């Protein structure tokens, strides 16, 4: 009951703010809406007793990536892009995407009715104390079963980081010379 309320609250916020994010003219408003979406999704994670994912979502996406997004948005001039967007194909693509999404939604709704239980109403999840502490579980599987993918991902990130540094450096040098 309480869980359902929380879920629909978070899900509603997520969907609403995602919609707002797409429709806002002002890039910074979009960013704020995106933050709201991400926070709401973090809330859903928490509700699923995935505390670690919850906090990762907050620290990385909201605290890190969105801050950088906003940083960039603040640095570029906001009024310019509005007039520059004259992309004819865009509407066409948008219609296609909406159609696809709507189709998917219908399918999910139909399937949900066929599923046992209350359909879209979430069943009560297991109480927190009965679940294993998931940050430990996550760490264990990450560093044992998925060690190789983890390392590959970290190397990839390192490469990206070095690349970014190199690009920034070289541009600085040309601008100084």
């Amino acid at each position: 009951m309480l869980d359902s309320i929380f879920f629909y609250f978070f899900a509603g916020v997520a969907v609403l703010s995602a919609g707002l994010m797409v429709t806002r003219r002002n890039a910074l408003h979009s960013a704020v809406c995106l933050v709201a979406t991400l926070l709401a999704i973090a809330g859903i994670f928490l509700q699923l007793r995935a505390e670690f994912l919850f906090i990762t979502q907050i620290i990385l996406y909201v605290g890190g990536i969105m801050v950088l997004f906003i940083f960039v948005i603040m640095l570029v001039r906001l009024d310019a892009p509005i007039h520059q967007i004259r992309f004819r194909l865009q509407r066409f693509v948008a219609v296609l995407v909406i159609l696809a999404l709507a189709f998917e939604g219908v399918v999910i709704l139909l399937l949900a009715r066929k599923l046992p239980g209350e359909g879209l109403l979430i069943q009560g999840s297991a109480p927190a104390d009965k679940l294993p502490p998931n940050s430990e579980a996550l760490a264990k599987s990450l560093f044992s079963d998925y060690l190789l993918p983890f390392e590959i991902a970290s190397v990839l990130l390192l490469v990206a980081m070095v690349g970014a540094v190199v690009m920034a450096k070289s541009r600085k040098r040309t601008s100084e010379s």
Partner: protein
Amino acid sequence: MSHPVTQALGCVLSISPTMQAVVAFLKTWWVELVCGVVIVAAVPLVAGYVVLVERKLMADMQARLGPMRVGPHGLLQPIADAVKLLIKEDIIPRDADAFIFWFAPVISMVAALTSMGAIYFGPAFRVAQDINIGILFVIGVSSLGFLGIILGGWASNSHYSIMGALRSTAQLVSYETAGGLAIISALLLSGSLKIRAIVDAQSDQHVWFLFLAPVAFFTYLVASIAETNRAPFDLPEAESELVAGYMTEYSGFRWALYFLGEYANMIVVASVATTLFLGGWLRPFSNVRWLDIPMGVLPALLIAALGVYCIYRAGKQPVKVQLGFMWVVALCCFGVAVIYLVPWLVAPLRFAIPGLNGAFWFLFKVAVYIYVFMWLRFTLPRYRFDQLMHLGWYILIPLAIVNIFSVGIAMFLSLELGWNRWLAVMLTTAFTLAVSLLLVRLHDKHASAASSTSAVPSDSYAG
């Protein structure tokens, strides 16, 4: 203590199923609710008085008196300030983004308050139960406060505000990293993210992590000053350059929200540092058994001593009102001291002793930590922005990373190879410091003349 009260309540109210549900809810959550309400209600007040204490301390160090007008020794100043801020005209600049402008301070304040939810202000005084990401929750949520700063700065539609906001963003990204890396050292030592587990680990290992990872503590100290925008890292609101940074266009209650958020944040970072490095609510020498009784009574005695001092000072007050007020303060102190002493005398209340004393020690350490913040603010000039960035990226972050390895090695040496723990810690710390010196040297060599920070951080914080 909880059961008789709630049960009685339950008997009265268990009429309808809805009531029963409510009662069940309250039964499980009443501690959280009460503590939450207390925190939300108390933080503004505490923050106000932290400001007063800061002003008084600053005045003392600067050979003046500080606020003296409102109430005896300015003790009612925070209330006067609050009233002034509340009734002040709320100005929203023309061309400002009204909604974000309105909303941004709330983010700051809410983030700071929410992050307090996971903090243990003592073994018993906490909001959230021991969630297994406790310390991450505190750090992550408190960092959301920066969204408020950035958005507020942007929405003000003023150059000063936006520059303050940009600075704070850059500062946040740099010093969150350093702070986070510093915390990892302590987490390695404790082996858990749970706050209670971290404190228990310090109790089990018979040492505060401050002594096992001094470099990490230092790094966290610097990073936490930067994260809370305190001098010498108060560049986002450097009044001599950017007027008030992101707060330039704010006034009245919204400004107060930012201000409260900032001071609440100070309490948060101080609590985190206390939990991680200073043994949380453990008293000094918590494992020396024979000190149990003397150290147990010490808080009560200290508070009583404060009361005695108030009485002593009361005789020197020039005005009668102030004399009376000092007596009231003294009586309050005695009252608190009595509350602390009663459990010792009444056997059935013994169980409250650890909670009371724990809260005392925790808050005491937090106060000391905040005092260090203030002390630095009164003493040091402000960094320049590029110097701040250099300090963060070239010195603190490498230092924190190296320190993680050092702490890991020290743990390995002492746990796996059976070395003496102190030897291992000393060796690895020396290693870390050597690396950091090398870093500073390298950095100084590379830094161009104009933007060179000759700042060796360990030097600048010596005094």
